[in-house]
């Protein structure tokens, strides 16, 4: 079967797919940046480390 000329709809779908792709990539970068900020802040504590520390004090 011969290849058909690209329809306008293919361009529109391509634009939508690229847009969603860029947004998802940006979301991943944003979550990574947010996680870095949260875990490097002075007030950050690992919940497990805190609870095991308390158990240690009781023993």
């Amino acid at each position, binding site marked *: 079967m011969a290849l058909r000329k690209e329809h306008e709809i293919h361009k529109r779908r391509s634009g*939508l797919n690229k847009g969603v792709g860029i947004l998802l990539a940006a979301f991943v970068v944003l979550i990574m940046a947010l996680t870095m900020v949260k875990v490097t*802040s002075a007030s950050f504590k690992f919940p497990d480390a805190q609870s095991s520390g308390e158990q240690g004090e009781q023993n």
Partner: protein
Amino acid sequence: MSDASINASRAYEDEASFGDYFALLKPRVMSLVVFTALVGLLAAPVSVHPVVGFCAILFIAIGGGASGALNMWWDADIDKVMKRTKSRPIPAGKVEAGEALAFGLALSGLSVIMLALAANVFAGAFLAFTIFFYVVVYTMWLKRATPQNIVIGGAAGAFPPVIGWIAATGTMSVEPWLMFLLTFMWTPPHFWALALFMRSDYDDAGVPMLTVTHGRRSTRIHILAYTVLLAVLAVGTAFSGIGGPIYLAAALVMNALFLHGAWKITRRDEDDSEGDNFKVERSFFKLSLLYLFLHFGAILAEALLKPYGLGGW
């Protein structure tokens, strides 16, 4: 070309683009949400990490956009009647109503959870309440039930600075509620001026705007009454923790202009308005946009200058 391909081609023409989904988020309303939430966040007396602050504003904006999509889903029937809204994605046939519902619900959930994680749970819960208020209380209940729809429903648009403040501090205080009241009291004269020169739209859609239920004379008087109350509140805010000389100067100038505009609207009759195609009402509507922008801009200026010993009293 076969019939099948012609039909398929027509169906493709109505397929949504990226821009149609973006239009569901009401970008112009979202810009107001972003600006006022940013002012609320920066006016708070604590420092916020730029990444956390950016995330908070982004997810507040997405929450505002999600409620816009849900509003378009519910109001699709009246949107196709009104000239101002008939080119929106659902009445234009670009996006299915069910798609808008799913899109709005998904973004609502995402924005609330992410704001709670990025800032704090209180801010996330307040964003959820704001979406609920705009979609259920305003859109589903009040909008078609009472001419006070704009007055009470305006609260939803006034919450963003409060959410911004809570995102920064995790607590509530008087200052964000002054910002809330500023937008809350500004909304009725802003929308009633619009209703005066877009009257056939609301009549055709059967939305009980004040112009339809109480008449246009009464609407003009209501605009003046709310503008007087707004002026007292706006100038009084200058002497609070978010005010200062810059804000006071902006408030005095803008409220004098706004009161003058409202007074001119009250003195006009329908023949005057029809005669010049609602020139005074249109200019009052444009002035109202500048009014809100300059008040929040002045609050922002006071907050940004404070570290240099210049902002505030």
